[in-house]
């Protein structure tokens, strides 16, 4: 077996390497802090000379998301990356991608908002990522990495899920994960699919040029007849229910005997794992439930913890309280659910979270 390829790399840089190694067909993006290294790294690596992957700097995020639409509609594996304000610009395109059931990968390396906000890390786009963002009833598949290794691994995972369900998938990272350097084990290079392979796999739906032996394919989200549009919507909802049943990913740390559970994702979860250690050192039975998929959300797992008698949940997020709503829905009144957060690009420390846990839940 070949030796593992271990590198020290930034979260944003590793996205570029992971994409090439996965066999991604095209990257389309527009520079925005704090994720510009993704496209910079790709341009430096020149994958068009090796795997044949296309890399293109678009004139805007509006354009790059629609380039994803055009690439995905031919059955290709395409991706983009951006940060919060850029994702807002993409919202229209995300809705169309979901409506036309096109698989693709979007990376949001979140920064603090609203508006132009700050360039520091934030988790203020949880609602935008998990509840739609664009118009209409749709969901993205949302993965939340908490390390550079997961940034790498989630590229393949997100592409696989996107193609399994023909649905856009998002990696919801943040400026901290994007900018931090860590050890990462790189995946071996997979051969990029040939045109013939891609077209054979996507023959039933993709628009790559109609062969004589099949009907024409039309990639669209339009249906003017309400009766038919409702059926399309119902089918989408069935797909989302299947994802909720099959694709929830989470990590439970010290949850088995926990009296109190912190729920946190991404960089917050990283911080909160230290909070759990500190709490345990003090003899407090605290656990951490880390949703890895934010959509589908691990509501069943949280509900089970609540049913088992957990006395309180603290949703620790780098925002004003967004995921806490989903935690509350999952707990469904069986235990108090509180939120602790910092905003505007500020991070919290593990001891701050522990203090909040004590103040809001344990001392009550």
């Amino acid at each position, binding site marked *: 077996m070949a030796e593992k390829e271990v590198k020290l790399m930034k979260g944003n840089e590793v996205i570029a390497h992971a994409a090439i190694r996965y066999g991604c067909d095209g990257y389309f993006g527009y520079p925005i802090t704090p994720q510009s290294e993704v496209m910079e790294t790709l341009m430096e690596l020149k994958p068009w000379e090796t795997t044949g992957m296309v890399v293109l700097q678009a004139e805007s995020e509006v354009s790059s998301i629609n380039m994803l639409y055009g690439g995905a509609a031919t059955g290709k594996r395409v991706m983009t990356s951006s940060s919060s304000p850029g994702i807002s610009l993409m919202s229209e395109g995300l809705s169309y991608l979901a409506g036309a059931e096109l698989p693709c990968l979007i990376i949001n390396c979140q920064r603090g908002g609203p508006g132009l906000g700050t360039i520091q890390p934030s988790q203020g786009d949880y609602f935008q990522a998990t509840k739609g963002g664009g118009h209409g009833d749709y969901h993205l598949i949302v993965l939340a990495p908490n390390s550079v290794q997961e940034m790498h691994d989630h590229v393949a995972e997100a592409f696989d899920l996107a193609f399994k369900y023909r649905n856009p998938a998002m990696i919801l990272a943040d400026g901290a994960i994007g900018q931090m350097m860590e050890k990462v084990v790189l995946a071996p290079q997979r051969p990029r699919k040939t045109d013939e392979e891609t077209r054979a796999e996507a023959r039933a739906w993709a628009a790559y040029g109609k062969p*004589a032996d099949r009907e024409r394919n*039309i990639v669209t989200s339009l249906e003017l007849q309400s009766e038919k549009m409702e059926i399309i919507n119902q089918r989408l909802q069935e797909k989302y229910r299947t994802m909720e049943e099959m694709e929830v990913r989470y990590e439970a740390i010290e949850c088995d005997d926990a009296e109190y559970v912190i729920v946190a994702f991404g960089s917050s979860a990283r911080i909160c794992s230290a909070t759990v250690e500190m709490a345990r050192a003090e003899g407090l039975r605290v656990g951490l439930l880390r949703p890895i998929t934010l959509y589908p959300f691990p509501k069943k797992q949280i509900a089970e913890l609540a049913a088992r008698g957990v006395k309180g949940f603290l949703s620790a997020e780098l925002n004003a309280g967004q995921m806490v709503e989903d935690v509350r829905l999952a707990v469904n009144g069986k235990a108090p659910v509180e939120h602790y957060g910092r905003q505007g690009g500020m991070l919290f420390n593990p001891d701050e979270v522990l203090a909040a846990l004590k103040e809001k839940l344990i001392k009550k």
Partner: protein
Amino acid sequence: MAEVEIKAENRVYAKPRLMLDNTMHYCPGCSHGTVHKLIAEVIDELGLADRTIGISPVGCSVFAYNYIDIDWMEAAHGRALAVATAAKRLNPDRMVFTYQGDGDLSAIGTAESIHAAARGENVVAIYINNAIYGMTGGQMAPTTLLGMKTATTPYGRDPRLNGYPYKIAEMMAHLDGATYITRQSVHKPANVRKCKAAIKKAFQHAMDGQGFSLVEVVSTCNSGWKLSPVAANEWLEQHMLPYYPLGDIKDVKLDPTR
């Protein structure tokens, strides 16, 4: 004298092979149908039926995919040339064209259109300029002529209130990546034939990797203009063509050393 026999060897014109039997949703006399036919004929004549990807816009021609028997994708309003860019770059052996109206290509999609042209994408944009928004009920387009009455310029387009019309074809002609820019019409049989030749040239241009082509078709929207189809064709000649003159605006070869 004998009657003309209705048989294949005497047939000199028929519905193009790639046109589907679906009855068009367009208003009677609408230019869209004529342009659709030309595209279908060109694709067939160039032998590209199994290699062409059409991109339909938002507007009346959103349903172009119901009429020509090729693979289609329907783009968000104005974004067709961004969609086309990736479809072509990822499938360079394919013929990729967009079909867009004046609202789509030259209002909401101006940025996507200009930049696809500037990059020299090897795609063709068929640009239907009828100086009005047809599908939404006849509102002002960027190409609406001064003085022209629309639902949102009920007293006529006034440059002090509504600004001036503009010619995106001439704008694109300034871009190095845009190599074939032409303005045609389909209001008379001779113009239809010229328009077809232009579309064919543009398609060949794209397949030869010669950069971006725009075929503007000065068209009628007789419903929006509130004229009969025949009167609309006459109005087009009298009012549209002086401002949007027909002919090739730019026709160059890309530098092979680029």
